């Protein structure tokens, strides 16, 4: 191991093991990771700029598509900011429905993560079972909102659809199945020897590091940091519901698994309470098309962690600026720290443990031109000149030949 050579291997941006394009440059000594350079920006979609070109109503659907998994999180986060600027008093029934959809989304996201984590460690049985059970919540979402993903439930000033008594019963029936299954997964996660041995001590992130690197969501909570926007800065109906913020002291991937499966139980609790307390009243207040001048920042606890949206309006139908800070951006620095001095074989599960969503995170293309790297953008004409000059230095020169030919033709 001491004599092992040091080398750098690039993983990504296009790599069979990665689900999304992102670049990891891993410095290795033997099998040990000396350091990781993460480069984002390969999946930049220009959503923020596109949001400035569209009206507020169109932006709801655009920003909903920032992420396919936490679509409700992004649209709610954006809408909360817009409602704050416009000074709208959203009806409490709408807030409760937003909360219910938000928690159903968390259930589907955590079950999806459980499957992905199982797949990354080679435990595909878990993937099959958790994704089968995830269908229960997907069907509930489809029947309440009208689609499996990108629910389109929010509108400025409220929600678009109601939850009627039959749908309420459907949710409760689904929750019964899910709760039973989740109890089983908690048993698996806490008793199955293979899982415990494979995940313990992998991707360690201490409490101090969480605070220093500002990790969010289950990544932070698994290191014993009680950080949850639902409890810290309650939005929607969370202020009126009682639930526990799940934390764990394992500080590793195992801790993150335990936090996520236990959070599922809290989500069931929240949905049950919200359905019971669901107040009567209107679904939506009339919102103006032109939002008055102002700016607002909104925070939302997405399944992956804290999501932040900043909106600035200029009194027209279109926002002046929309800024999205997806939770992965806050957690990605922690990955770098988690991987240091670990083995290359742990890389897939450590990255998967933050539940990364790189296309949500990619907001701009950063072109660096520093001493260490030689990244540069060359346009076609300058590349053309560069290639001619490069070969000229090595003896391939067409200048004389060109001259000769020109002379012959002019003669």
């Amino acid at each position, binding site marked *: 191991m001491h004599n092992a050579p040091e080398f750098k291997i690039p993983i990504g941006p296009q790599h069979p093991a990665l689900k999304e394009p992102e670049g990891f440059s891993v410095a290795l000594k033997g099998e040990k990771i000396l350091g990781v350079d993460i480069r984002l920006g390969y999946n930049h979609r220009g959503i923020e700029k596109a949001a400035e070109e569209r009206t507020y109503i169109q932006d709801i659907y655009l920003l909903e598509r920032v992420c396919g998994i936490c679509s409700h999180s992004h649209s709610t986060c954006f809408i909360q900011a817009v409602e704050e600027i416009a000074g709208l008093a959203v009806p409490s029934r709408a807030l409760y429905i937003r909360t219910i959809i938000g928690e159903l989304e968390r259930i589907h996201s955590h079950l999806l993560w459980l499957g992905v984590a199982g797949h990354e460690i080679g435990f595909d049985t878990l993937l099959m*079972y958790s994704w089968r059970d995830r269908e229960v919540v997907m069907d509930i979402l489809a029947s309440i909102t*009208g689609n499996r993903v*990108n629910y389109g439930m929010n509108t400025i000033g409220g929600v678009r659809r109601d939850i009627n008594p039959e749908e309420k019963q459907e949710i409760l029936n689904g929750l019964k199945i899910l709760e039973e299954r989740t109890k*089983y997964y908690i048993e*698996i996660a806490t008793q199955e020897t293979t899982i415990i041995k494979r995940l313990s001590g992998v991707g360690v992130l201490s409490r101090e590091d969480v605070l220093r690197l500002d990790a969010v969501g289950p990544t932070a909570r698994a290191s014993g940091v009680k950080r949850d926007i639902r409890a810290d800065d309650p939005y929607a109906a969370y202020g009126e519901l009682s639930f526990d913020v799940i934390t764990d002291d394992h500080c590793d991937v195992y801790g993150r698994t335990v936090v996520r499966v236990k959070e599922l139980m809290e989500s069931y609790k929240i949905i049950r309470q919200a359905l019971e307390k669901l107040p009567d009243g209107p679904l939506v207040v009339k919102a103006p098309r032109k939002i008055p001048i102002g700016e607002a920042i909104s925070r939302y606890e997405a399944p992956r962690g804290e999501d932040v949206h900043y909106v600035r309006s200029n009194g027209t139908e279109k926002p002046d600026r929309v800024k999205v800070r997806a939770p992965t951006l806050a957690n990605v620095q922690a990955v770098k720290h988690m991987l240091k001095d670990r083995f290359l074989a742990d890389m897939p599960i450590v990255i998967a443990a933050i539940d990364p969503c790189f296309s949500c995170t990619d907001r701009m293309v950063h072109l660096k031109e520093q001493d260490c790297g030689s990244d540069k953008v060359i346009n076609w004409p300058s590349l053309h000149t560069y290639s001619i000059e490069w070969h000229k230095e090595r003896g391939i020169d067409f200048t004389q030949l060109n001259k000769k030919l020109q002379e012959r033709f002019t003669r």
Partner: protein
Amino acid sequence: MRPGKMLREVLGSIFKKPATNLYPAQKMDMPEGFRGKIKFDPEKCIGCKMCMRDCPTNAITINKVGEGKFEAVFDLSRCIYCAQCVDTCPKKALSTTKEVELAQLDKNKLRVVFHSKE
């Protein structure tokens, strides 16, 4: 700690029927209120073009074809099935259907025209 905690579940699953459907032989029913292909009722349209204004992807075009007669052109390759147009329409001329199998090999078939009735 217990090794092989999932073994019972795995063995039990051998005797259960599959959780998946044999699509396309076996098709699932879409729930009520599913946001599928949009339907247009030319009788009700008043030509205010609010749907055109609110559509996030510019998938709808409303054309005036005569006095008080309108036709709608939908570009299904652009439509994101958010059904905002259904909410926006003041006369309820637009509605959602449960139709979801909309993939086409021919690009022209993705252009759907709802002609106004004579």
